[in-house]
């Protein structure tokens, strides 16, 4: 049974189709990343999965429970951090966590033990009795995470959990996501940060204009764009583009004082460049090969430059 199974989700707002036939299957215990540019449909999809928004068509099941048919049953299995989702400013850090725990039916002893444990993990034990209104954005987001994980949810859904955070808070949030995953939670997160997705996720879906355009592991997605490998080379004197008309080189572009030489076989391209340099009595000042990045895959898939 999948942790999350969304089938043919569609949502329109007036004439605008925000999500167009999106289907996702997330197996248990993985970290699934949902990547896409602004307005691609990430948050709309997350809102339909978490029961905040009712889809026009399609269905969502969380660990086998249909979100629209049995919202209470499905939501009991989830911990959610909405986009820009904040906590109650007029309650203390601890009160926010305790009141969330009550929604999940945790008994008093369990609530208090778990709140203390999470506040310590997130570095907020000393501020537990302070009103959240006095907290920084990073601290509020940590309380938001604390509320989402207080009941040790089997499925944790985070909509851009690290956006706008300082380095310390971001690190704490990422460590907590990893910890929850190690404890057995399935994670679904959306992010703009491609490096973060690359670092955290076992599977990534890229969404653009309301449709999923690619799904796979970060390595698989990068491999799909192997043609974007390149060799960056600099010589001791200016050279023309003719130098790069060699076997294994698809094209070459000038990048400042260097040339970026695109190839599908970097080893062959380096050998060709070395031969050309020797032939024309040039000295190679620097040379480096680069593998395709997830960012390049993302840009290509979403039609960016």
């Amino acid at each position, binding site marked *: 049974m999948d942790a999350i199974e969304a089938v043919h989700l569609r949502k329109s707002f007036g004439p605008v189709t925000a999500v167009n036939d999106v289907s996702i299957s997330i197996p248990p215990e993985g970290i699934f990343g949902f990547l896409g540019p602004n307005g691609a449909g990430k948050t709309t999809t997350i809102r339909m999965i978490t*029961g905040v*928004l009712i889809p026009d068509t399609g269905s969502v099941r969380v660990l086998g429970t249909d979100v629209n048919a049995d919202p*209470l049953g499905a939501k009991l299995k*989830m911990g*959610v951090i909405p986009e820009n*989702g904040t906590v109650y400013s007029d309650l203390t850090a601890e009160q926010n966590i305790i*009141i*969330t725990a009550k*929604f999940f039916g945790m008994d008093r002893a369990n609530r208090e033990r778990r709140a203390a444990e999470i506040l310590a993990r997130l570095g907020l034990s000393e501020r537990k009795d302070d009103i959240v209104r006095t907290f920084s954005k990073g601290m509020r987001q940590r309380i938001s995470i604390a509320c989402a994980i207080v009941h040790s949810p089997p499925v944790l859904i985070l909509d851009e959990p690290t956006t706008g955070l300082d380095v310390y808070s971001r690190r704490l949030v990422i460590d907590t996501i990893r910890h929850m995953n190690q404890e057995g939670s399935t994670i679904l997160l959306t992010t703009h940060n491609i490096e973060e997705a690359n670092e955290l996720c076992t599977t990534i879906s890229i969404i653009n204009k309301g449709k999923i355009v690619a799904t796979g592991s970060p390595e698989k997605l990068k491999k799909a764009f192997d043609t974007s490998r390149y060799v960056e080379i600099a010589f001791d004197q200016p050279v023309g583009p003719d130098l790069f008309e060699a076997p294994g080189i698809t094209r070459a572009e000038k990048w400042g004082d260097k040339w970026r030489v695109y190839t599908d076989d970097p080893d062959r391209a380096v050998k060709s460049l070395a031969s050309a340099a020797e032939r024309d009595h040039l000295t190679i000042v620097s040379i480096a090969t680069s593998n395709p990045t997830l960012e390049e895959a993302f840009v290509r898939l979403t039609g960016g430059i």
Partner: protein
Amino acid sequence: MDGKVFLRSIAVVTEKNMRIYYFKGPVVVFGLLFPLIMFFTFFIGRNLDIVLFFPGFLGMMLFFTASSVGPLITPWEKREKTYERLVSLPVILESIIIGDLMAGAIFGIGITTIVFVVSDALLRLPLANIGALALGFVLGSIAFAALGTLLASPTTDNPSNIMMLSSLIRLPLIFVSGIFVPLGQLTGWEWILTTLSPLTYLVDLFHAGLNGDAVYPPWFDGLVLVGVILVFIGCAKVIQRRNLVKGI
């Protein structure tokens, strides 16, 4: 649907609202001062019969206190971005609506009970039918807290818009509900207008409970208030569900 989880979600939404919106110094002080100001405004210097006037005054108090904060909760939470978090917790629309309503009803009953007890001690009020009085407290507080929840339902994250709507609807009601002119003295279009106001039936119940001088039988007043509660909750649910479909 799991009934236990549903009831728990209502209880926690109520507790959350009481803690955040009602158990605040300014709100409680307003709740207690407001009746005093209204009493002085409408009673002092007008040589009104307190026995005739008090049921209307009590109805007005319950009406204003039960529906005072409710209209602000949802727009405020939408503005603060806590509403989406709430909806993603194990709640359904009915939990939020009934939880908001319960908090308003508890606040209304609490403040109005204090006002009634103090007034009774000072004015030695008559008590003709304690059952009708209790029914008025319970149904009136729920009905007008439900009105507060309905007023909170339109799509906006701007509490001042809702305050304007709330004042526009609530203030005129006190003039067409038999508070200042006894129901028995009204005729023609004034009487028709009065029968359309739900506050009329609460004031009439309080008349039955305090001085026994009611126009309708208490069961009829009670039935109308139950109907009003169901209509207000039903309309709030339809509007809030439409908001969920549209994207909050």
